[in-house]
C-alpha cells in the first residue's frame, strides 16, 4: 500500500519553480536554454530545451541526492513497494549492471537462466563473476525459451552452494514468468541474494490480474524499465532495492559508471510517469489488457497465427503469463517471425517490437488505440493471404543450446585472441557475443565453446534476415576466438 501522497511530482515542481526564477546561466549546458543552438531548439522545442539544465542547488544532484531527487526517489520507492528506489539515466542496462555489481565480486558465482539480456553478461565481464546457467526449458511448438524450473534452480544451488546470487527474468520478453516467489524463498534459505530483471515488468507493480512483481515476491533488487510499459523517456529506468542490501553501497556502485550530468529531461520523465502510474496505473493497464486480449482473439481467428496467453501456464516453466504481451507465433504460416516482422515494416508501415525465428512481439501500451490494432490485425490477415507457404520445410526447429562455459566471461573478453572464419571456429572458445537484436539474448557469450550446432543457428538467423550483432566483424563472417586454446 502506498503511504505517501503520490500526486506530488517533486522534480517537475522544482523545474517549474526554477523556470520562473529566470536565472542567468553561466553554467553548462552550453546551449543556454537552447539559445545557442537554433536548429536543435527548432526541432525539439523551446520548452524542452529550457529544462535541459545542470544539477544545481534548487534541482538537487543525482549522484548525491538530498532534496527534490531524494524526495522523488522516496515517492518511487513507495509506489513500487520497495525500500529504496534509484533514478537511472543510463538505461535499464545500467540498472541491471549495478544490481549484478552490487551482488557479485570477481570469482563469485551467479545462478541465472540462459535467456538473460546481454547487459547481464556484460556485467559479468565488468565484475569477473562466473555464470552458472540454468536451462530454461523450451516450448518446441512456439520455439521460445521459458522460465527456470524450481527444481532446476534447486539443483544449481545444490551444485553451487557458494553462489552469491540468483537472477530471474520477470517476465521474459515474451511474457513468461518463473515461480519467482518460491525461487526467492529457496535462494534466501541458502543465503543468496535474488535479483529480478524486470525490464519488461513495470506494469506488474500497478495493474490488476498480472503476475507477481519482484518486490512483492521479496527479491533483494529489481531493475524496472520505466520507459517500456511505464511511459517515461527512452533510457530512463528505476533500480529498486528491498531488504538485505545496503542502499548506500548500491549508490556507490551506480556512481562508478553513471553520468555525473544526469539529464533532467529523463529525471522529470521518470518522476511524472511514476505519478501517472501510481494514480492511474490500475485503469491504464486494465485498458492495455483489454486491447491485447482483443487483438489476440482477432489474430487467432485469422488462422495459422497463434497469439498465446494464459493457456500455456503449466505451474513450473510457465508459472505465470503476462497478458499485456502480444506474442504471436507464425510458424504454421510457413514464415519465420523475422520474415513477418520485415513484411510488416517494409510493406505495411507497421513496426513491431521484434521478430525471432518463430514469433513476433507487438508491444501494446497506454499509447495505443483501437484503430491501430485494427491495422495490425488486418495486415497480419493480408500477409497470410499473400504469403502463406504450403511447404514448411526448411524451418529450423528452435533448440536450446546448452552453453559450455569454458572460461569466465571477463577472462575470455580480455584474453589474447585471433579472428577465424566461422566455419573454422568449431571447437574453439569464443571471446565475444553473438546475438539477435532484439531480443538481445546471446547465442554465444565470451568464454563459451563454439559448436557446429551454434554455427548452424547463426547461419539460419542470418539467412532469415535477423539483425545479428555482437562480434567485432560487423558482417559476422569472422569470430574472435581465444588464442592457443
Amino acid at each position, binding site marked *: 500500500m502506498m503511504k505517501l501522497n503520490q500526486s506530488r511530482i517533486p522534480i517537475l515542481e522544482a523545474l517549474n519553480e526554477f523556470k520562473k526564477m529566470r536565472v542567468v546561466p553561466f553554467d553548462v549546458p552550453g546551449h543556454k536554454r537552447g539559445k545557442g543552438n537554433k536548429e536543435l531548439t527548432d526541432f525539439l522545442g523551446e520548452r524542452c530545451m529550457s529544462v535541459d539544465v545542470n544539477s544545481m542547488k534548487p534541482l538537487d544532484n543525482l549522484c548525491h541526492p538530498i532534496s527534490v531527487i531524494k524526495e522523488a526517489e522516496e515517492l518511487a520507492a513507495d509506489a513500487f513497494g520497495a525500500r529504496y528506489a534509484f533514478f537511472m539515466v543510463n538505461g535499464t542496462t545500467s540498472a541491471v549492471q549495478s544490481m549484478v555489481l552490487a551482488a557479485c565480486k570477481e570469482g563469485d558465482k551467479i545462478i541465472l537462466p540462459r535467456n538473460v539480456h546481454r547487459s547481464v553478461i556484460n556485467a559479468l565481464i565488468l565484475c569477473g563473476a562466473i555464470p552458472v546457467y540454468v536451462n530454461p526449458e523450451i516450448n518446441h511448438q512456439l520455439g521460445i525459451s521459458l522460465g527456470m524450473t524450481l527444481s532446476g534452480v534447486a539443483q544449481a544451488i545444490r551444485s553451487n552452494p557458494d553462489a552469491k546470487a540468483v537472477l530471474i527474468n520477470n517476465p521474459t520478453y515474451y511474457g513468461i514468468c518463473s515461480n519467482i516467489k518460491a525461487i526467492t524463498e529457496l535462494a534466501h534459505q541458502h543465503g543468496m541474494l535474488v535479483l529480478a530483471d524486470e525490464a519488461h515488468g513495470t506494469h506488474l507493480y500497478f495493474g490488476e490480474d498480472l503476475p507477481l512483481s519482484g518486490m512483492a515476491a521479496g527479491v533483494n533488487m529489481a531493475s524496472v524499465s520505466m520507459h517500456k510499459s511505464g511511459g517515461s523517456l527512452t533510457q530512463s529506468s528505476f533500480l529498486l532495492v528491498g531488504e538485505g542490501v545496503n542502499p548506500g553501497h548500491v549508490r556507490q556502485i551506480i556512481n562508478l559508471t553513471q553520468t555525473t550530468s544526469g539529464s533532467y529531461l529523463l529525471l522529470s520523465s521518470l518522476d511524472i510517469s511514476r505519478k501517472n502510474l501510481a494514480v492511474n496505473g490500475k485503469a491504464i493497464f486494465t485498458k492495455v489488457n483489454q486491447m491485447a486480449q482483443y487483438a489476440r482473439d482477432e489474430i487467432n481467428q485469422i488462422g495459422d497465427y497463434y497469439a498465446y496467453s494464459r493457456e500455456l501456464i503449466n505451474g513450473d516453466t510457465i508459472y505465470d503469463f503476462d497478458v499485456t504481451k502480444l506474442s504471436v507465433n507464425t510458424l504454421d504460416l510457413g514464415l519465420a517471425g523475422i520474415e513477418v516482422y520485415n513484411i510488416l515494416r517494409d510493406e505495411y*508501415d507497421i513496426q513491431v517490437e521484434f521478430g525471432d525465428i518463430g514469433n513476433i512481439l507487438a508491444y501494446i501500451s497506454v499509447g495505443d488505440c*483501437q*484503430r*491501430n490494432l*485494427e491495422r495490425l490485425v*488486418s495486415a497480419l*490477415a*493480408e500477409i497470410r*493471404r499473400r504469403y502463406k507457404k504450403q511447404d514448411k520445410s526448411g524451418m529450423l526447429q528452435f533448440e536450446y543450446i546448452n552453453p559450455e562455459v569454458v572460461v569466465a566471461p571477463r577472462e575470455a573478453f580480455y584474453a589474447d585472441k585471433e579472428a577465424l572464419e566461422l566455419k573454422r571456429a568449431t571447437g574453439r572458445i569464443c571471446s565475444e557475443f553473438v546475438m539477435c537484436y532484439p531480443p538481445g539474448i546471446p547465442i554465444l557469450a565470451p568464454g563459451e565453446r563454439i559448436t557446429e550446432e551454434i554455427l548452424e543457428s547463426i547461419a539460419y538467423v542470418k539467412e532469415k534476415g535477423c539483425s545479428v550483432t555482437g562480434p567485432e566483424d560487423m558482417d559476422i563472417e569472422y569470430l574472435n576466438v581465444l588464442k592457443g586454446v
Partner: protein
Amino acid sequence: MELWYTEKHTDSVKFSIQVDRQLYSGQSEFQRIDVFDSKEFGRFLTLDGYMMLTEKDEFIYHEMMVHVPMAVHPAVKRVLIIGGGDGGAIRELVRYPTVEHIDLVEIDELVVEVCKKHLPQTACCFNDPRVHLHFEDGLRYIRHCEDEYDLIIVDSTDPFGPGEGLFTKEFYGNCYKALKADGIMVNQHESAFYADDAIAMQRAHKRIVQSFLISKVYQAHIPTYPSGHWLFGFASKKYHPTADLNGVKWNALGLKTRYYNTRLHAGCFALPNYVEEMLRDAE
C-alpha cells in the same frame, strides 16, 4: 456581426465561409462534428473542423463517386460503402433498381444521426430496404469479407484522424479480397495541389497499385475542398474505366444528373501533366 468558418488548407492558406448560424456541435468518441448554415453554400458539415460537404457542391462529389463505376460495371448487385455517413453516396446508388444490397460501414454512428437530423439533402435514403448500416471500423469489417461485393466505395475522411486506416495497404488488400472477380473499388483520393495532400495522394496510389491490376485516377472540380481540384481512385480486377464504359446503356437508364455525364466520364481520366507525373513517381 460577422461569423466566419475557416479551414486552413495549408499552414499559410485559409478558406473561409461566412456563417449564418451554427446548428449543431458535438463530440463523438472519434471526432468533433459541426453543422452550419451559410448564405453561399447552404448547410455544411465539418468533422474536426475539416469541410466534409456543403449543400451547394456535394452533388459533384457523390455523383462522381457513384456513377463512374456504375457506368462501367455491367451488373452491380452488392455494394459496400466504407464511411459515407452523410448518406450522399447511398442517395445516388438507390437510384439504380438493379442494386440489390448496400452495406454501409461507418465508424461514427453520431455522424449518421446528425446528418439525418440536419442534412436531409444527403441523408434522405437510409430507410431504403436495401440499405444495411453497420457502425464499426471499416478495416475490421472488411477483414471478414471474401468474394462478396461487385463495388466498394471508400468514402473516407482525410488520412489524418479516424480515416487513417482507410489509406493503408492492408485496407486496400482486404478490399481486393472482399471484391468478386470482376469487382471495382473507387476511393476518395485526396488532391495533388498542396504538398501535404499530394503526399497522401501518392501514398494511397502507391498502395492501390500494389493490390490491383487496373488502377486509374480521375478528377472533379469541388469548390470547397482544398485547391478545388479533387481526385478519385478507380481500381479494378477486370474492367478498364474508359475502355469498358458502356455509355449507351447508362444513358438509357435516364438518370438525371447535374455533374456527371458519359462524355465527362471519358474526359475525367485525362489528368494534368503534373498529376500524371506524381502518379508515375508513386508507381
